[in-house]
Structure formats: C-alpha cells, structure tokens
C-alpha cells in the first residue's frame, strides 16, 4: 500500500514528529511504500539543519535526513509555510540575501501541488499534528 504522511507540528514541542517517524518505521517493515512526507504549518521546523539537541536526546532532524538517505523517501517542505517562518531554499535565500544553508540534508522545498499529488496518488494520507 502507498502511504503518504503529513506533519503539521514542530519537533520537540509536540510528539507528532516522533509518532510519524515510528509509524513510518513500522510501515516500511510491513512492506508498505511511504509515498512522501509533507511538512506543513509549524512542521517545517523539522527541516532546520542547525537543530542541535543535547547528545543524550534523539535528533529529530537527523533522523529524517537518515530516513531519506536509507530509504529514498521524499521529504517535502511546503514553500509558503517555510518562507513565512524563515526557512528558505538556497536559491531563494541567495536572491533575497537570506541564510542559504538553512535546509537540512534530504529535504526539498516545494509547493502544495506535491501535497495534492500525494493525496491523489497514495492509498492513505495520514496527518500527524498538534
């Protein structure tokens, strides 16, 4: 089954990113395909490269990057949610004089069209939020 995931909450303030990550691990073990993970609302904070949690805590951002590296899962950050909150794609940041290295490895910034594509193509679309 093709399962698409949406994350609407920031990491650390809510459990949403943790619940989604554990769900995805279990779905992969069960042989399902994770079509895409779409980060919306404050969920875009999951993609901040410079997140540096203390060493004895889980590193939520790194965990997402690893998921992409190991399983090739498409991690998409909504462009309008991200720009509103100060997370810019490198080319945009360069143009407007913003911080160019904000986005963590494995993520890409794109429009809501990719969310619609996921909802239309996937068998299930599950939202995790606050």
């Amino acid at each position, binding site marked *: *089954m093709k399962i698409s995931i949406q994350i609407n909450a920031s990491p650390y303030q809510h*459990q*949403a990113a943790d*619940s989604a990550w554990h*769900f995805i691990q*279990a779905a992969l073990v*069960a042989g399902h395909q994770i079509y895409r993970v779409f980060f919306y609302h404050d969920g875009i904070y999951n993609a901040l490269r410079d997140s540096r949690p203390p060493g004895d805590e889980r590193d939520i951002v790194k965990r997402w990057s690893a998921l992409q590296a190991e399983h090739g899962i498409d991690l998409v950050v909504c462009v309008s949610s991200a720009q509103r909150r100060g997370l810019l794609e490198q080319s945009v940041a360069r143009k407007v004089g913003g911080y160019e290295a904000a986005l963590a490895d494995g993520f890409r910034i794109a429009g809501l069209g990719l969310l619609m594509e996921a909802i239309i193509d996937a068998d*299930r679309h599950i939202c995790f939020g606050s």
Partner: protein
Amino acid sequence: MLYIINKSHTDNLALSKCLQTASATDVVLLIEHAVYAALELSQSPLTAMAGSAVTVYALSPDMQARGVQQAACLDFIQYVDYAGFVELVAANQPIRSCF
C-alpha cells in the same frame, strides 16, 4: 472510519465528539496523551462506553511512555504497537486525525 485521537480527554473534546456519532463500523485509536482516556478511573467519555459496538484501541508504546498500565484500563480496550497502528490504517478508510 478510523479516528486517531492524540489529546487528553480533559484537554480536548475530540474523543467525546467522535464517540457521539461512532457506530459499529468505526474504530478509535488513542495515541500520545489520548491514552490516558483508557484508564478505568479517568472519568473519560470511554468509561460510559462499556458494551458499545465501537472498537477502541490504545497505542501501547505511548501507554508505556506514560506509565499507563493495561491492568488499570477499561476491559474493552484493545492494544496495538506501531505495527498494529499501520494495520489499522491499512484496514480502515476514511481516516480522521482529530486535533
């Protein structure tokens, strides 16, 4: 329909509202802080649901994280881990995540 509830029943009306219209074909999954509603003495809306046709699951890792023991929970509650969560998602449509 599968309802995914993630907030404590004292904090949010989602559980109460979904139970008002839930029928025998509906499934409720309690995750995150919502697992407290499974406790027998919690006075949650579930405590009035004994004998109801609605199927209620609680996510056991979220229970363990919060020290919510199965022995202290309502006897009709069923338990799933994340693999079971995935199975519920695959078996039910549509799904409503309540916030």
